[in-house]
């Protein structure tokens, strides 16, 4: 019996800019339920609906008005409620699913993910453990070896470092070392990431430490929709899965379908298709990237944003297709620079798709420092949208200079008659980018010709003069000239 899985389809329309989608391919894979009914589950849907929805809510999602809310399908809830819903549905479906963790039962969970479950399922199924992470993780692995499906919660991902041995050796390796006799269908989940001034020990990103462990799968959820889907998929998976949630994302609100759905653990999500550059990200940085994407779109760039979701193994199929299209990659992550997810991803993309890259892969990660408590310092530790915008422009700059390169270099041999070269540095490239190119030529003591300023910009010439003069004192910005119906700014340098 096939159950159709629906996806909420918002009827909001956006500008033409977002109209070009990649052809969506809804992949189905049958999932055998424990009562042996076949259901067809769709993987993440490419293009069509999701990108529109996410772009509108680049940072925290807003609640829609009640009038429109009533007419839309699905129901609205917060991310921690979605996790709870997923967990509850799985616990209803399969009596072997149980939860271990500190304060998950009577207290309801420190982030309310397991609120109400202990009253419903009893104290043994939603077990309040003492503060002994190493031991209760080990207990979970032992229970899994006999067939139970524990969901082990670390109150904060940082505490799971105490359980590292159990996760690495027992969780990851037992299936292999026993020759396939035991499967360890555990889910290890918890909030991690840099929060609001939680201090160094409570702001850890463990994905980089866990990624080398053979035998486990890592997934990071970022939206309400994929939180529920990934939770369910992780519980149903026969492999040990570490589900990374983020402390700051628990209160995101979104509308998700009423129907049951499960997402694939190994698939990346196409958040926003584009042409110029591929931005790979996961978890909270997705929202920083989408915020930067708004700015970039205004500046004329078309970034393709992919939420990789699966941190181990990487979905090189989606990523590869994207790299083949855009030829530039920017990785934005919250991990540390050294040995982080970005570092592995850079290596993987370089190995597999080197020929398709026009520029070196840029990886923006957190600073390699313990997260300081002071708010201003903590902001500097993680990647901010402004840095993402600057990085994209840097990457696309290579495109500009290769273009101007081809214009300028044929006549570079004789500088005296090399004047009045026209450069197409239209306003779609930011001031910094244009100034970088200017700087390049100024250093070579060349006389620049005219800098074309696009007609659309309606700024006074004093602004333009001021900008360039401030930056390069060897540039004499002349008057505006009009050539046909475009205005050109004459720039001469010594």
């Amino acid at each position, binding site marked *: 019996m096939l159950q159709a899985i629906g996806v909420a389809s918002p009827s909001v329309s956006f500008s033409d800019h977002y109209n070009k989608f990649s052809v969506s391919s809804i992949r189905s894979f049958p999932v055998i339920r424990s009562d042996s009914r076949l259901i067809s589950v769709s993987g993440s849907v490419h293009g069509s609906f999701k990108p529109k929805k996410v772009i509108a809510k680049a940072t925290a999602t807003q609640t829609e008005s009640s009038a429109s809310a009533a007419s839309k399908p699905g129901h609205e809830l917060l991310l921690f409620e979605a996790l709870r819903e997923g967990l509850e549905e799985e616990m209803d479906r399969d009596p072997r699913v149980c939860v271990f963790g*500190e*304060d998950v039962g*009577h*207290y*309801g969970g*420190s982030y309310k993910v397991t609120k109400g479950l202990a009253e419903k399922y009893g104290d043994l199924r939603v077990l*309040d453990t*003492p*503060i*002994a992470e*190493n*031991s209760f993780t080990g207990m979970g692995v032992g229970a899994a070896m006999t067939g139970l499906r524990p969901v082990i919660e670390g109150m904060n991902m*940082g*505490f799971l*470092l*105490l359980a590292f041995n159990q996760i690495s050796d027992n969780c990851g390796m037992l299936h292999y070392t026993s020759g396939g006799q035991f499967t360890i269908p555990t889910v290890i989940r918890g909030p991690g990431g840099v*929060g*609001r*001034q*939680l*201090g*160094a*020990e*409570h702001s850890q990103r463990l994905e980089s430490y866990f990624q080398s462990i053979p035998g486990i799968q890592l997934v990071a959820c970022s939206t309400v929709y994929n939180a529920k889907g990934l939770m369910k998929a992780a519980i149903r998976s026969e492999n040990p899965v570490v589900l990374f949630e983020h402390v700051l994302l628990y209160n995101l609100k979104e509308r998700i379908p009423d129907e049951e759905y499960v997402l694939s653990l190994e698939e990346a999500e196409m958040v926003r298709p584009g042409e110029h550059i591929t931005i790979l990200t996961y978890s909270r940085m997705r929202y920083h990237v989408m915020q930067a994407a708004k700015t970039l779109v205004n500046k004329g760039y078309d970034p393709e944003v992919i939420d990789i979701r699966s941190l181990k193994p990487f979905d090189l199929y989606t990523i590869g297709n994207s790299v083949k299209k855009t030829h530039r990659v920017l990785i934005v992550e919250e991990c540390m620079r050294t040995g982080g997810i970005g570092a592995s991803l850079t290596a993987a993309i370089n190995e597999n798709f080197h020929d398709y890259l026009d520029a070196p892969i840029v990886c923006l990660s957190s*600073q*390699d*420092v*313990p997260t*300081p*408590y*002071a*708010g*201003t*310092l903590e902001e*500097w*530790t993680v990647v901010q949208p402004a840095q993402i915008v600057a990085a994209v422009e840097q990457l696309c700059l290579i495109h500009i200079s290769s273009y101007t390169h081809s214009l300028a270099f044929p006549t570079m041999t004789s500088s005296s008659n090399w004047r009045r070269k026209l450069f197409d540095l239209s306003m779609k490239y930011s001031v910094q980018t244009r100034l970088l190119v200017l700087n390049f030529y100024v250093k070579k003591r060349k006389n620049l010709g005219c800098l074309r300023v696009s007609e659309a910009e309606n700024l006074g010439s004093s602004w333009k003069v001021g900008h360039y003069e401030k930056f390069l004192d060897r540039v004499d910005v002349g008057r505006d000239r009009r050539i046909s119906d475009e205005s050109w700014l004459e720039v001469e340098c010594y």
Partner: protein
Amino acid sequence: MAQLTRRTTDLLKPFSAALSSTRLLTTTSTTPITVETSLPFTGHKIDPPSRSVETTPQELMNFFRDMALMRRMEIAADSLYKAKLIRGFCHLYDGQEAVSVGMEAAITKKDCIITAYRDHCIFLGRGGTLLECFAELMGRKDGCSKGKGGSMHFYKKDSGFYGGHGIVGAQIPLGCGLAFAQKYSKDENVTFAMYGDGAANQGQLFEALNMAALWDLPAILVCENNHYGMGTAEWRAAKSPAYYKRGDYVPGLKANGMDAFAVKQACKFAKEHALKNGPIILEMDTYRYHGHSMSDPGSTYRTRDEISGVRQERDPIERIRKLVLSHDLATEKELKDIEKEVRKEVDEAIAQAKESPMPDPSELFTNVHVKGFGVEAFGADRKELRAVLP
């Protein structure tokens, strides 16, 4: 029952009339007062010490003032947190002040103390200033960790306070390490490694205890049993909530943690024991009025009646107040004046801390590594360019 020495009171009465404002200074008389602890000690594999504690009027007044200061500081931190000047995690110690104050009275600054994240008052007890405390809580440059640590990372090396740790139970092996160093350098000091009833179920505690007992390290493990590990009551987390007995082969002593003199006696006794015979576990039966941290209301797992009941019957500051009044060391009004003075001091410190600037952005990269000894071509952060011979 307090045993009064008639001589002291007769001496003090004429003074009280004439020099009421300076009477506190004149009670620097070291005429001893003997106080009895509220409850007897219970021992595990050891003979508990006697209930009579020697003290002086000066010490009593100091206890009162210090505890009032700590209480006031924690309440001020509560309102600062609600005003969003302190963010993240903030674990408050009010109700448990007697442990810190009693311990300080029994030891010197050369002895080491290490504790978990409920460390503001212990930091104060070790000699930290209010300004350093509030500045660190607000993330400013003048904080004890330059604003980079936060509430859970207070340290004071020169007076033997080793923090300030966020991960539950991780400070106990560190404490045994401090004890090891003390034994190594034979300096006749001890280490107090403090932890809570929640951490008492951590495996690393027993590992560290085994090693301390094996090598006779001068480590004293102090369990501040406030009966709740965040939201879980002790009977739901531990099969045996008699934490002083959990050491099995290591002797233990249980004291009433709301009575500063019981704590003082226990710590003094423990120090003597540890220097001769190796580790000992102390259990301080105490209580916290606030929730686990500021994000925990503290009332979902316990009733308000329970909290107010403890506050009425066992409050540490009230006990000292009654002792002071019954020994006629100060009047009600003077005690109230001390409290007002303390409040003023806290307010001034907060104002001063608020003016302190946020740390400079370059501080993000300082203190990650220590600069090398000069022979490397590159530093650990690869900022050095040339080999520099020392």
